[in-house]
């Protein structure tokens, strides 16, 4: 790259004067045609060769550099009549309103001028925003009579995009320009114009810069036909009308025709700048597609700013479908060999790794641990081919760089969109595997919010040792087990891991020693010393716990009894870990599950992330091999089977609540119902009915639960927090319950009734969407319809919520992206201004806090007591 290094000291934003536009122009454009019959560009046409070249073979007529090097040169079009620039229509309107129609001076008295000038100058000198004062000036400069020449003022209105109307007369662009010209330079400051860089009359165009061809390249189709860029099309329109306008004016055509053409020219110039301006019909392509003109190129998500400047495409990245692999560590990612051979890491050749590098080159680009390119010390990049690799190896010496394939142990960045939080991009260690999908450990599904129904993820390969070191230390998966959202683990066991751990650590789980050792070995753990007696599941699980771990908590299966029996809990829900031994209690979702795992949380905080990684990697394996696979685990509708007597009781219960609803309605109709405070009678009725029906559904659940045994797989999953809830089971086994739309019972559809199957005014349970049937039994047609109504609302809600929260997130990120916590604990912006004297007002890093709080005293005391009692023993 050639060029001169200079430091930018100041940037001025101003307007381009007609002189500047003409000065930087290399040619005047007059002909609307682009190419002649032979396919050569026409001189003074829109494709004039002096505007620059795109073909790499040709030389530029203006600057002499070859195509690709020449960035192009501007041309210009002289307008036959001036035209208002759409982007400035509003500004022009404001200026005209606050200046005199005759003498052009700002409608401020001398005293006002003095005062404003002082304040403006002050702000400008301090480099502060003056828009507030300008707004005030705009308001006070609305006078009926000019304070300087006594001229009566008429109100000027702006008609949608560009027409300025004074009274009933529509000002022409020439008149507007004349008025702007009369404004004296010393008044510029009051209308917010810096006379050094802009003059108001420049907002009305007399000459239009024509962008070089490099900005609007034409595409040659396969048929050999040329297809021009939208901008070129628009410029052709402008030229054509401009030409006609000029001819008509010279021929002395009637005023009316000239004005019509002028108007048309204004339209084309307007849409050339902005084809989505309100009040202007968008200019369309022959196919009916609206043209993408200048403003459209910049604006919005697909515009230049958001898609090319704020975001870019990158090399050394890969994307494919993901699938699970429980044998990988949470820190690893399985990379398909095909991808491993495509993305590379640059390795500097030294005398110590020379042999290794030669081996990679010898393998070439098609054999796995190979190399694709080498970079010579002079910067030349050479592709490794089978034919050339021998010579490449001969020339190889320290100082060369070899771009070798990624291999096991390389560190890469792994990402799943939408990247909503920092855990959406984490560093993994590579494991090159067969087949074509990325493989990941199941514990990292929650932070990425990934599942395997076809999700795809991206991988990026770090290219510098600095990046690798940083990623290894702070971006590794194990460093993100604790979420900064709530100081608990977001990476943890899910689904079968939890069921498995529950089954393994359950009271009755005992294995013969040889069986226990098989499980431990299969979980890739070190074999412990033999005990010479059977092992309990808790003992096996304790092998994973750090020796110094002391912990007391209530498991997920806790029934929340009125009085906690603590250590004598009959459900084994009171977990006690003392010196790394699981003395009692079961391990379930609260133990090491994603989102709430206490043991996991304690290990990360008291020991280290790599201890937690070990615990998670092997704990999940232990749960699968020692829990789920020893017993076998399956679920089906048989798990939601309830005996006939239960069904009868449920039917009876529902009938009773239906009657209760009838009674309520009767009471309402007889005006015997008493309104709740702040509610109408009707609302009271609705609330009471909802309450009765809600209780009814819950009570059916209570009945069903009595018939569910603890060996029931579905119940185990619901209670341990592995998957599903008791509510789900109730809905399957007994009664689906009330369907809701807009937070209330269903009341829409026909006049005074939901469906024509009911009487008008029927607000009974059946008519308002209470589903008496269970999913297992099946819904009747009416219930099915109501259920679909409720279901549809749920779907629409989620769709809307994601869109809304996405936009909210975007605004929040834009507002906060340059705030940072400094060494002294203050939060500052990029200027060093203090935003908060202490981060979060308490200076706590939520990821390292105890579920958001500084510390949980009760727990600490309990654990200290535990340590004491163990010590005294």
């Amino acid at each position, binding site marked *: 790259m050639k060029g001169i290094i200079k430091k930018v000291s100041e940037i001025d934003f101003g307007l381009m004067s007609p002189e500047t536009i003409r000065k930087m122009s290399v040619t005047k454009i007059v002909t609307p045609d682009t190419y002649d019959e032979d396919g050569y560009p026409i001189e003074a046409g829109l494709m004039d060769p002096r505007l620059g070249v795109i073909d790499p073979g040709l030389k530029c007529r203006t600057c002499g550099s070859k195509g690709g090097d020449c960035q192009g040169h501007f041309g210009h079009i002289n307008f036959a009549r001036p035209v208002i620039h759409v982007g400035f229509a509003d500004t022009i309107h404001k200026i005209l309103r606050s200046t005199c129609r005759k003498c052009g001076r700002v409608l401020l008295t001398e005293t006002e001028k003095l005062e404003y000038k002082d304040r403006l100058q002050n702000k400008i000198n301090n480099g502060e925003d003056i828009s507030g004062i300008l707004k005030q000036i705009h308001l006070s400069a609305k006078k009926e009579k000019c304070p300087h020449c006594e001229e009566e003022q008429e109100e000027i209105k702006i008609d949608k995009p560009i027409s300025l109307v004074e009274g009933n007369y529509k000002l022409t662009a020439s008149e507007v320009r004349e008025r702007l010209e009369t404004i004296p330079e010393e008044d510029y400051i009051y209308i917010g114009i810096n006379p050094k860089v802009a003059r108001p009359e420049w907002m009305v165009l007399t000459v239009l810069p024509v962008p070089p061809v490099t900005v609007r390249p034409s595409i040659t189709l396969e048929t050999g036909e040329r297809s021009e860029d939208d901008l070129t099309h628009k410029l052709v329109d402008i030229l054509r009308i401009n030409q006609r306008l000029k001819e008509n004016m010279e021929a002395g055509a009637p005023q009316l025709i000239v004005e019509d053409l002028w108007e048309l020219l204004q339209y084309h110039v307007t849409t050339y700048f902005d084809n989505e301006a309100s009040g202007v019909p968008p200019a369309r392509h022959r196919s009916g597609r609206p043209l993408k003109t200048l403003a459209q190129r910049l604006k919005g998500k697909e515009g230049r700013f958001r898609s090319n400047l704020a975001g870019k495409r990158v090399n050394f990245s890969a994307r494919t479908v993901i699938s699970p692999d429980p044998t990988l560590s949470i820190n690893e990612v399985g990379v398909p060999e095909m991808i491993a051979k495509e993305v590379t890491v640059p390795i500097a050749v030294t005398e110590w790794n020379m042999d290794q590098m030669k081996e990679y080159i010898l393998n070439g680009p098609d054999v796995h641990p190979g190399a694709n390119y080498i970079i010579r010390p002079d910067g030349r990049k050479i592709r490794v081919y089978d034919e050339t690799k021998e010579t490449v190896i001969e020339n190889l010496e320290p100082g060369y760089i070899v771009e070798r394939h990624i291999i096991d142990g390389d560190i890469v960045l792994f990402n799943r969109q939408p990247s909503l939080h920092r855990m959406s991009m984490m560093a993994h260690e590579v494991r090159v595997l067969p087949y074509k999908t990325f493989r990941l450990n199941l514990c990292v599904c929650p932070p990425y919010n990934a599942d395997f129904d076809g999700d795809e993820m991206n991988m990026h390969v770090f290219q510098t040792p600095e990046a690798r070191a940083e990623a290894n230390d702070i971006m590794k998966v194990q460093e993100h087990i604790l979420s900064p959202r709530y100081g608990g683990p977001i990476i943890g066991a899910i689904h079968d891991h939890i069921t498995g751990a529950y089954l393994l650590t359950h009271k009755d789980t005992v294995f013969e020693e040889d069986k226990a050792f098989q499980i431990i070995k299969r979980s890739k753990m070190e074999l412990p010393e033999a005990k010479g007696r059977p092992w309990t599941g808790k003992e096996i699980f304790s092998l994973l716990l750090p020796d110094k771990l002391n912990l007391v908590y209530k498991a997920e299966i806790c029934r929340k009894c009125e009085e906690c029996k603590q250590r004598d809990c009959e459900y084994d829900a009171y977990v006690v870990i003392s010196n790394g031994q699981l003395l009692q209690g079961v391990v379930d979702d609260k133990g090491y599950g994603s989102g709430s795992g206490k043991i996991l949380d304690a290990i990360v905080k008291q020991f280290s992330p790599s201890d937690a990684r070990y615990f998670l990697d092997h704990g999940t394996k232990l749960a699968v091999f020692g829990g789920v696979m020893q017993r076998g685990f399956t679920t089906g509708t048989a798990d939601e089977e309830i005996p006939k007597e239960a069904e009868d009781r449920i039917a009876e219960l529902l009938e009773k609540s239906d009657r209760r609803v009838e009674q309520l309605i009767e009471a309402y109709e007889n005006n015997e119902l008493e309104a709740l405070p702040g509610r109408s009678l009707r609302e009271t009725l609705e609330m009471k009915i909802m309450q009765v029906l809600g209780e009814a559904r819950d009570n059916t659940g209570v009945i069903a639960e009595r018939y569910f045994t603890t060996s029931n797989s579905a119940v185990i999953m619901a209670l341990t927090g592995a998957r599903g809830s008791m509510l789900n089971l109730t809905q399957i086994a007994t009664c689906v319950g009330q369907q809701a739309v807009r937070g209330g019972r269903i009341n829409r559809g026909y006049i005074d009734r939901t469906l024509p199957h009911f009487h008008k005014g029927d607000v009974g349970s059946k008519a308002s969407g209470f589903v008496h049937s269970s999913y297992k039994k099946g819904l009747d047609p009416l219930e099915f319809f109501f259920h679909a109504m409720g279901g549809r609302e749920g779907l629409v809600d989620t769709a809307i919520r994601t869109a809304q929260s996405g936009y909210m997130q975007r605004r929040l990120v834009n507002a906060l992206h340059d705030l940072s916590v400094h060494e002294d604990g203050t939060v500052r912006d990029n200027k060093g201004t203090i935003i908060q*004297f202490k981060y979060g007002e*308490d200076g706590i890093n939520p990821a390292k806090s105890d579920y958001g709080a500084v510390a949980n005293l009760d727990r600490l005391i309990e654990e200290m007591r535990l340590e004491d009692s163990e010590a005294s023993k």
Partner: protein
Amino acid sequence: MKTDILKHKLVPEHIILTDEEAEEVLLEKNITEDQLQKILPNDPVVKAIGAKEGDILKIIRDSETAGTFVSYRIVRP
């Protein structure tokens, strides 16, 4: 009669610092005046307590995370 906004429970305590106190705060926090957050001279509380431009206010607020929290603002337009 006008309501005394300073007695409203949502209005935190604002104290005008003396020049010496202000100096001390800036020194302790190792910041300059223009790094402080500003509070407008026409802010209702500023008018109520009669602070002038250039004064530094100590604001003691209830905080969800820290109980009470002290911050400083400079009166500046």
